[in-house]
């Protein structure tokens, strides 16, 4: 659905994107991660046709952005970090304007408007001027505008930034709802959000793509061993016993917990717990320890 090939973008002497390439399939939800200034927003702007790249190509569906920009853009719905809204316009007029801008037939506009208004729960604000709305409501109007022409691809740049926790949950649920039928690119600093919604992540740093995979695969690459913790009811130190179990690479006692590093074998956890129980100890808790997306992100960005 989206194909970016060897794209570079310069701002004067500064190269914001260095020959990046990636592709996204139909109905895929991809997270776009990177520290501040990594080139995320530039990449999104190139992707949406706001900027033309200095080299390389952007293809949306069957259309190249530099050859058929109108057709390529018609497939996109884009919500920038600061939603582009006309403060003096009422919500319904603004959404009608965006629909017309995207070439929606006059007879279809009302039904599309009703659909996005109900999807974003903006019924009560239908006639309200945008300048009177809270930040969360403005964000919802922005999302409604990205959906109004029923685009195949939705690109959301930091959609929950600056919102309060309740608004964040609302917007996140809305994204999950949209995700059922669209190709989505989601850029966010909140990694839990990416992990919750996206099937794959692209990590960008200093204008280059440094990783592109599912979160599970990235985790496996960065943490080839399995790591889990076990808590037993007895006070006895059984570190040495655990270390003697087959396939255990190391064991460390922290407070009442044993942090066990083992080879990546599917049955390893069952084997270890069975050996401990057979030795006569009672297990209170077994916890798989995985790298969080934050840790994966930090390791990749720092080049560990």
């Amino acid at each position, binding site marked *: 659905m989206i194909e970016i090939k060897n794209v570079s973008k310069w701002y004067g002497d500064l190269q914001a994107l260095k020959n990046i390439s990636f592709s996204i399939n139909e109905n895929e939800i991809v997270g776009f991660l990177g520290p501040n200034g990594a080139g995320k927003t530039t990449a999104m702007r190139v992707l*949406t046709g706001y900027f033309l790249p200095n080299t390389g190509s952007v293809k949306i569906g069957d259309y190249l952005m530099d050859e058929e920009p*109108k057709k390529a*853009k018609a497939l996109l719905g884009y919500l920038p970090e600061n*939603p582009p809204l006309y403060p003096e316009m009422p919500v319904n007029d603004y959404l009608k*304007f965006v629909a017309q*801008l995207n070439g929606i037939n006059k007879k279809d506009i009302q039904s599309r408007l009703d659909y996005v208004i109900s999807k974003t729960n903006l019924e009560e604000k239908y006639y309200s001027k945008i300048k009177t709305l809270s930040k969360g409501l403005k964000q919802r109007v922005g999302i409604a505008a990205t959906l109004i022409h029923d685009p195949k691809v939705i690109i959301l740049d930091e959609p929950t930034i600056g919102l309060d926790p309740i608004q964040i949950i609302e917007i996140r649920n809305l994204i999950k709802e949209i995700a059922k039928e669209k190709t989505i690119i989601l850029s966010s600093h909140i990694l839990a959000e990416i992990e919750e919604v996206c099937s794959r992540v692209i990590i960008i740093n200093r204008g280059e793509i440094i990783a592109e995979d599912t979160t599970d695969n990235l985790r496996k690459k960065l943490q080839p061993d399995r790591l889990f913790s076990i808590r037993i009811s007895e006070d006895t130190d059984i570190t040495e016993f655990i270390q003697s179990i087959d396939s255990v690479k190391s064991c460390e006692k922290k407070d009442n917990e044993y942090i066990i590093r083992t080879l990546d074998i599917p049955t390893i956890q069952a084997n270890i717990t069975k050996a401990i129980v057979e030795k006569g100890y009672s297990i209170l808790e077994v916890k798989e320890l995985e790298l969080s997306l934050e840790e994966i992100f930090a390791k990749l960005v720092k080049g560990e």
Partner: protein
Amino acid sequence: MKNSWLLAKRDLNSIFMNSLIAPIILFIFWELSGFFFYIFLVSAQIASLEGFIPNMIIILALSIPIIVARAFPEERKNNTLELLYTSPVSDTEIYFGKFIAYNLFSLIMISPVIIYTGILFIIGRPEILPLLFSLLGYLLLTIFFTTISLLISSISNNQVVAAMISWVVLLIISLIDWLKNIVYKPFFKTLISNLSYQEHLSNLSKGFLDLNALLYFIVFIGVIIYINITLIESKK
């Protein structure tokens, strides 16, 4: 063009809905133009716009930038250029949306001249051709000033700065004619006459169908439009 008209309607709506500046400017402009029309009519006792139009130049040059300066900085402030540039609309359509909206506003501003023309016919017998060419010159000058202000607005992030630069540019363009009095070489005198819009405007208001004058305005307006669209494209 359908997209440009859609954008123009939104812009025109925004000019009037966003603040009281537009109605205030219209009110002041209409008051002053009525005053000047009356003064020249009474003092000259001639049914003509020949004295009226040259004296409206300074009022036009001061009023137009105040409104037009907001065209692009306002979009940047609202981040809405990002909406326009990522929608299936071309840069040329975006430019002409602004061009149509702000020129329509300027035309509304100068529209009382139609009433003044009517008054001239009621109270006297004006010469038709000079009157028509005067009106044509007034119209072209208004579009010329609006197009220049739009160009300056498109390269500025701040509407106050854009308005001030536009005033300075329109003032410099209006002062070119004065240089005629301080140069002696005939070549420079001719060059300045050709570059000065006042010379062309004055020919039109005298009733000559001065093709040079028409060409002057059409070429300059066309070149500014071309530069403006190229600038919008190059900023990407």
